[in-house]
């Protein structure tokens, strides 16, 4: 599972990390102090860049989130296996949800059901540990951990079919 990573200091510029891929190719990631990142695929020599893709801060973060999202789901799956009785589900926020465009805190999901919202998936990107002031949008997937009953309740809250007292479902 572990990947062989070598690191090279680039004085005055930043650092370059090189990963040995399973197919024998090598992938380099240059992190410049300016925040700019370079993704490098090495040539047949293994010394020079055959491809160099420069990413700015936002682009690098987007790539990291996309690559990190399955990682998060995988970890949650492991968590689920470890904790008997707990389930993880990605619950949609429908367009007609009473909580679309409202802060997460307004759902009072945790207080009302005991389930925890650990992340929100938005357009393929994982936004982990959302705070109560995180504003939900239609189309978001809310990653919820809890008992089957609690998670079902959260689903009802999100799609607006839960009673106003929060005890139904």
């Amino acid at each position: 599972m572990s990947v062989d990573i070598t690191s090279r200091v680039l004085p005055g510029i930043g650092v370059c990390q090189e990963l040995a891929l399973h197919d024998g190719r090598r992938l380099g990631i240059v992190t410049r102090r300016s925040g700019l990142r370079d993704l490098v695929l090495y040539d047949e020599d293994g010394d020079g860049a055959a491809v160099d893709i420069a990413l700015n801060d936002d682009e690098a973060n987007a790539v990291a989130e996309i690559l990190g999202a399955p990682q998060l789901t995988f970890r949650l799956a492991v968590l689920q296996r470890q904790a008997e009785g707990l389930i993880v589900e990605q619950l949609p926020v429908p367009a007609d949800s009473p909580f679309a465009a409202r802060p997460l805190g307004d759902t009072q999901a945790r207080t009302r059901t005991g389930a925890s919202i650990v992340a929100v998936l938005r357009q393929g990107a994982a936004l982990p540990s959302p705070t109560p002031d995180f504003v939900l949008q239609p189309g978001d997937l809310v990653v919820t951990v809890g008992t089957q009953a609690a998670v079902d309740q959260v689903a009802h809250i999100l799609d607006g079919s839960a009673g106003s007292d929060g005890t139904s479902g």
Partner: protein
Amino acid sequence: MAAAGGGETHVAVLLVELGALLFGLGVLGRIARRFNIPVIPLYLLAGLCFGQGGVLSLSASHDFVQVAADIGVILLLVMLGLEYSADELRSSLRAQAPIGVLDGLLNALPGAALALIAGWGATAAVALAGITWVSSSGVIAKMLGDSGRLGNRETPAILGVLVIEDLAMALYLPLLTALLAGGGAGKVVVAVAIAVGVVSVVLVIATRYGRHVTKLVSARDNNESLLLGVLGLTLLVAGLADQLKVSAAVGAFLVGIAVSGAVAETAIEVLAPLRDVFAAVFFVFFGLSTNPGDLLPVLPLALALAVVTSGTKMTTGYVAARRAGVKRRGRWRAAVTLIPRGEFSVVVAALAVGAGAQAKLGPTAACYVLLTILIGALVHRWPDRLRAEQSRP
């Protein structure tokens, strides 16, 4: 300063001259970015075009621009120091010392030899040695970034050479300053001994007690205080170093090294725009104080020097990359990348000419820097073609 020079018209002329100068530099910067070329040669060329007897003559702002140019050198050096951490310097020194020695011998000696052959005397020989020795960190870092070679295996070797050169300057500049100041061999030896002592002490302080120096200027969440603190400390130490004949530039470099961590990162951010302004003024001022008419007579000499020292610099790069275990193409990439000379050569020439050494050093250095940057740019892509030929079955 302006008020001392005269009345309101003087101030008005000064503002107009300064404004025209900076605006012109801004246009040049845009041109450079448009065509993706380093801006230093453009600043030099602009200075040369409008030099003595040219279209633009700085009458009112001459003194101000001269001081601004001096501050430009100090800011160039403090930024260089800030960009390297003391640990990076130490590890580079340990790993690359033999390459540093080879680099010094191969590239400084041709300059010194040529000055001696031309009959310019020993001091000018030492100055020209410095001019041909040091590659341009600024130009090379930009070329590496733009051509997507930062991730390459040979890049740490290239940067290692640059680091060693910059460190060597911390010893070379005081030597040159002492030589230029005159006095017997004894005085020069004392000056160099002081310089070696000061540099070693500062390196030790920076690695062991860098936190305390950093605390001196650190200002939590207040970039304005940080800017003033770092700038003040830099000018203060630079002035003291100048007084001790250790060279103001070296003092500034050492301050940059001593400031470390998050403070250094913020300092780079806040100082960068200042450095850009003043360093640009420095390059232009150097061009302005060089008479374009003096360029042609020294052109053959500068060309010979550029060709010879491009060859010797390529040897340095090739050997450094081979030592790092890089294959043939990468060695050639390292070789051609190191060719451009830049800010240090101009700093050395300005220092020498300012102290009244051989006047031809100015135009020679200007020609030489422009030629090495041109040669470097022309051959930069050449190792890539080597790849295409090689990979054919």
